[in-house]
């Protein structure tokens, strides 16, 4: 395990991942510290979404190590990784990925139910109000606009107030005005409970929102 004075929230060493014998991701070394919002910048297909899956324990890397909060993921059982993911990460996917059979409120409160926490109704209502979804509380995902669905995904990621919020391409289909709005929303929301924000995107318009950036290229990565 790394021996920094301050343990990073996430750290990787010699991380490699392949699909069908073709290596699509290689990161020599990388870390994310608490409060240090970062942008993973790279073109489509360079492995951004794969990296998010690896960091959150949804996939296992072909080789290399990942530490989350100082815990080596490869040393954990499947169930332990599930619990660690639930307690550490709030994930916002590019396609929002809402559960189609549940309404907005049920989707938002799902992470707390999965982690056996009592539903914080006050916080849920606050998120709905903060994200302008109060009148959509009982609406099914199929009846939401793209913007509304994205805000539901953001609210869901914020529900457990996780230490790390990871967003995958949150601005890919937005105009400049809405891009700025979503980024401000994410930054401000994470600041409410002190979460660290990690955004994976190919959208260079959002570079100004981050002090630290990781540029992802084919099989090689370098800090920007």
């Amino acid at each position, binding site marked *: 395990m790394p021996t920094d004075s301050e343990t990073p929230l996430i750290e990787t060493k010699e991380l490699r991942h392949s699909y069908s014998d073709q290596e699509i991701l290689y990161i020599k070394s990388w870390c994310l510290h608490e409060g240090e919002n970062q942008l993973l910048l790279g073109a489509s297909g360079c492995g951004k979404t794969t990296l998010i899956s690896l960091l959150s324990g949804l996939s296992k890397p072909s080789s290399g190590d990942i530490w989350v909060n100082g815990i080596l993921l490869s040393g954990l059982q499947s169930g332990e990784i*599930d619990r660690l993911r*639930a307690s550490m990460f709030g994930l916002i996917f590019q396609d929002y990925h809402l559960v189609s059979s549940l309404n907005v409120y049920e989707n938002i409160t799902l992470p707390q139910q999965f982690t056996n926490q009592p539903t914080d109704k006050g916080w849920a209502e606050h998120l709905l109000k903060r994200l302008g979804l109060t009148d959509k509380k009982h609406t099914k995902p199929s009846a939401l606009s793209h913007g509304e669905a994205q805000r539901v995904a953001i609210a869901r990621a914020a529900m457990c107030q996780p230490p790390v919020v990871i967003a995958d391409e949150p601005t890919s289909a937005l105009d400049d005005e809405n891009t700025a709005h979503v980024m401000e929303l994410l930054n401000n929301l994470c600041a409410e409970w002190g979460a660290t924000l990690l955004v994976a995107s190919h959208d260079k318009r959002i570079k100004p929102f981050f002090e630290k950036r990781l540029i992802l290229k084919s099989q090689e990565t370098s800090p920007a």
Partner: protein
Amino acid sequence: MKLIFKLTLANMLHRPLSTFLTMATLAAAVALMSLLIQIREHTAYRLKQDIADVDLVVGAKGSPLQLVLSSLLHIDIPTGNIPLTDAQTIMKHPYVSETLPLALGDSFRRFRVVGTTPNIMEFYDARLASGEIWHEAQQVVIGSSVHKALKMNLGQKFYSSHGLSSSGTNEAQHQHAPYEVIGIMEPTYSILDRLILTSIDSIWLAHGEEAHDTLEEHSEHEDEAHHHEKDILSQPVPDLQSIDPTGLEITALLIRYKSPIAAVHMPRMVNSTPGLQAAAPAIEITRLFDLTTGISETIQAVAIILTVIGGVSIFITVSHSSAAGLYDMALMRAVGASSTFTISQRLLEGLLIAITSAVIGVSLAHLLLLVLHETYAPAAVFGLTGMRLYSTELGLIIGAVLTGAAASLWPALTAYRVDPSILLKRGR
């Protein structure tokens, strides 16, 4: 636990048509199986009750199966009559423990009038719900099904018809010899429920006087006929063992042996008597079942095929649900659900479909029989009320649940093996 149920139900209700069709297929299979089980179990029970541990039936020569069916199950015409003299000899035989003489030939609205002795009550372990047993000619005790179907009560009089037609027509009535209901039996769940019991001499009187009437060509005055009717009703019941048997006949004699050794000697002895035949109910009923084996096996095969279709249907539904639901499972894992939770959800979906279908299927089968029993007279006569749940039906429900579990296990395990990140990339 609450969450897994909530999510599973939400998932099922999200695809109502698919869920409904799967449940309908499996419920139909279970209902058919349940009907078969109920009919088979009830038939076996009724046969056991109707046979009433009778070891031998003695009657006129003819088909032994016909003799058993007509004398024990009352569903065929008798082979003929036998002299009371011969019956008395058999009744007094040392191998014989109990006997029950029967005189058949008349009916009232498709219910058979059976002339017999009062010990039929002990013979079938029957009890009176109201009234009393007959002590004079033309008095009858009716079975519970007769009471219910014909709404007959104590004191009611009726005329029987000659013949055992099941059509219920009242042709060739014994107008000179009315019967009076003086007793109503409690349900015995045997053939007794569907019979009208009277003394044997009532049958003799009805038939003897009928012949007399024919000779007289109905020349008597109405008042005289009324006195004649009173005379018949006041006849005391004779003792069959001591009565002079000359010229008298009965239809059959039911026998219980005193010892198993009788099974070797009695049939031989009876069959050597001119005009008499012996039929063993156990043998004849087995033969009857052998004849119907093909039919019941075919129906059973159809039910099994339907069950397999139901199982495949669950497999397809849960698989399809998994294909669409794999994505949901992946995203649930992404937002905090464990892999155990998502597998359990797949299994629960299959189990819920199977359990619900099984319960609906069994309930429908029972409801159908209940409705038939209440609205369709022949079904009521058969006595299958649909109110009894057989242990084999519980086995059927367990079988359906296992089918559901087996059918959903593979999709659940498939879902478990797939990398969630690939599914999330692929999308819905």
